[in-house]
């Protein structure tokens, strides 16, 4: 019941607003966009506040009981390893792997702390290059996922309520089988004897072009990256789009907005938070992915994840592996900060 109430308010406001200002002049359209976002915030804030108010009723021990375990978990398995990693990056690699001692038993061996891994990293453009390449792959994956997921999420959100759950289930169904098995399946699908390969090469042959290998290529890596991460884009978008009040679109239609205007002036701006969270959920895991390039990549598809993995296995150079991981973490945090700022600025302006 209360949900109805909170929903009514922004709708009524927007209706009034749209009545006064038609979605015609560009400046006004902009305003409507912000206004509509404002509506969503107003819609969600009371819900969030209600949640906060009810936790305040809990007495202190209960509060700790609720928040304590996840807090300790994060401290133990996120903060502590993070600190260990930072410390490791300032040390020398051990002769057989692991780390050289901080305090030497034999003064002739390497020991203590050093900046050499950072010097090694920054003295060589090749590592910056591999970062840039990984960012490009992550960006491409995110964009393709977005373009593919948006119509799907919209379709699910606009379907009758009954079939929505089934459709969402279908989206997450691939998770029922193991990640590696799904990647290996792509080896068969993209292999030179597969239908797809015959189709593509038949087409290329008709235009007199040389046949291509689909498997073991950057193309295969991108396909699998998109395939694996698509649900992470669909789900946040769907949860966002599903909450949109259909009355907003009716109002826009009443005011003479065509289908494109209804999408661009109403639906799209309202879905921005979904786009941001979906993009973050895709971009960050892709950045660290090493299994897909390992299995499906060709001879030139090393990404930063592969390089880090190799420092800990083949090269047994923990300090340099730690340095690379820290650089990756910094890069990821910078991205999240940027996304948050982009999202946040819209809120403040509203």
């Amino acid at each position: 019941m209360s949900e109805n109430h909170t929903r009514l308010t922004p709708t009524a406001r927007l209706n009034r607003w749209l009545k006064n200002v038609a979605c015609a002049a560009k400046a006004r359209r902009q305003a409507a966009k912000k206004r509509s976002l404002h509506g969503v915030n107003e819609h969600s804030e009371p819900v969030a506040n209600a949640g906060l108010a009810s936790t305040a009723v809990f007495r202190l021990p209960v509060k700790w009981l609720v928040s304590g375990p996840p807090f300790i978990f994060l401290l133990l398995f996120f903060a502590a390893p993070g600190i260990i990693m930072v410390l490791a990056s300032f040390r020398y690699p051990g002769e057989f792997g692991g780390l050289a001692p901080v305090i030497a038993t034999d003064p002739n061996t390497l020991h203590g702390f050093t900046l050499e891994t950072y010097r090694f990293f920054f003295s060589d453009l090749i590592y910056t290059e591999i970062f840039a390449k990984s960012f490009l792959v992550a960006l491409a994956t995110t964009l393709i996922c977005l373009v593919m997921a948006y119509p799907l999420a919209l379709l699910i959100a606009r379907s009758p309520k009954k079939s929505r759950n089934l459709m969402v289930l279908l989206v997450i169904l691939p998770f029922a089988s193991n990640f590696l098995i799904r990647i290996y399946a792509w080896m068969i699908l993209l292999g030179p004897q597969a239908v797809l390969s015959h189709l593509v090469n038949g087409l290329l042959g008709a235009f007199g072009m040389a046949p291509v290998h689909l498997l073991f290529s950057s193309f295969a890596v991108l396909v699998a990256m998109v395939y694996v991460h698509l649900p992470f884009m669909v789900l946040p978008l769907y949860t966002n789009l599903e909450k949109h009040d259909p009355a907003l679109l009716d109002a826009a239609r009443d005011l003479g907005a065509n289908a494109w205007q209804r999408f661009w002036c109403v639906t799209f701006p309202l879905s921005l938070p979904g786009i941001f969270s979906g993009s973050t959920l895709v971009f960050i895991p892709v950045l660290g992915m090493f299994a897909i390039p390992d299995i499906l990549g060709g001879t030139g598809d090393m990404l930063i994840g592969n390089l880090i993995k190799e420092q800990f296995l083949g090269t047994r150079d923990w300090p340099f592996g730690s340095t690379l991981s820290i650089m990756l973490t910094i890069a990821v945090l910078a991205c999240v900060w940027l996304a948050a700022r982009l999202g946040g600025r819209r809120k403040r302006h509203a």
Partner: protein
Amino acid sequence: MRGLLLFLLLLAGNARAEGVLHIYNWNNYISEETVTRFEAQCACRVMQDYYSDNEEMLAKLAAGASGYDIIVPTGNAMESLIRQKALRPLDKSKLPNLRNINPAYLNTAFDPDNKYSVPYAYTITLIGYNVEKMRELGLPTDTWAVIFEPEYLKKVKGRITVLDSQRELMAAALKYLGYSANDTIEAHWKQARDLIIRAKPYWAAFNASSYIKELTIGDVWLVHGYSNDIFQANLDAQKAGRKFSIASSIPTQGAVLALDSMVLHKTGPRPDLAHRFINFMLDGKNSAELTNLIGSGNPNLDAMRYIKPEIAQNPAIFPDSQHQAKLEMLHDLDRNQRRILSRMWTEIKLR
């Protein structure tokens, strides 16, 4: 972290029944029947953990894994374990079957006098190929040139994979250039790197695992790979009724031999059982079972009479003395060399 792991292992240890032998071994590196027979003989249980490369095993031990009685590392990894003082010396009075081992595989540079290790099996890193395709294309199969020279490579473009291993690929390139597989002169490494970068556009992938399958189904015709993997690929191809066969050959320039040995880890709680197991595995019949299963090379002279004749007569598994003389075992690199090689490897992958 190490403390926590140890604690967890101890916890697991208390839950264990009496008489359990813990082996940390390669994937698919012992026959099921052999294990069952040993369990019956010693009235104990054999628990196995597996690794798929030495680095993985070393990394796990470096991170504090313990409680393994027996590990089966390759020479250079074993050397590293010996120098870390992580191994327990053998009591040879408990290993009468040691006399079965071919002296050619004893007293290696990694473990003089075999204080810590007993040879288990070996693999050779060589060239594997689709026999019919190579004949059809008229390509040689007894030289590394077929992997590195564009004049040959252009005939198999996109149908060839090389191992995704810095050391193995560099060793092949160094061998082709006429250097030792263990050469560490940077100028020679750079030559090898350039050779690899020149050949790379013709290769389909750096591949350490799925090339067996790719050979079997006929998508890949030529590989730089391990002898027992190629043996496996041929078995699979025959089983699937393919019209071609897969063979392997040791290039005339020489190749890398990886000798895996059984060693006792210091943290193993049951050295007595471990010695019994090693002596059991040194028995010709038990040792031959592994070779018959996976086509691994066998350093056990007594095993030869139990090995299937088609394997015993395969020159890529049991090479003649001329080829044998050109096989080299890889030595461990020091930390600076490892970092330099990794830097080169990144360049190879990125170019």
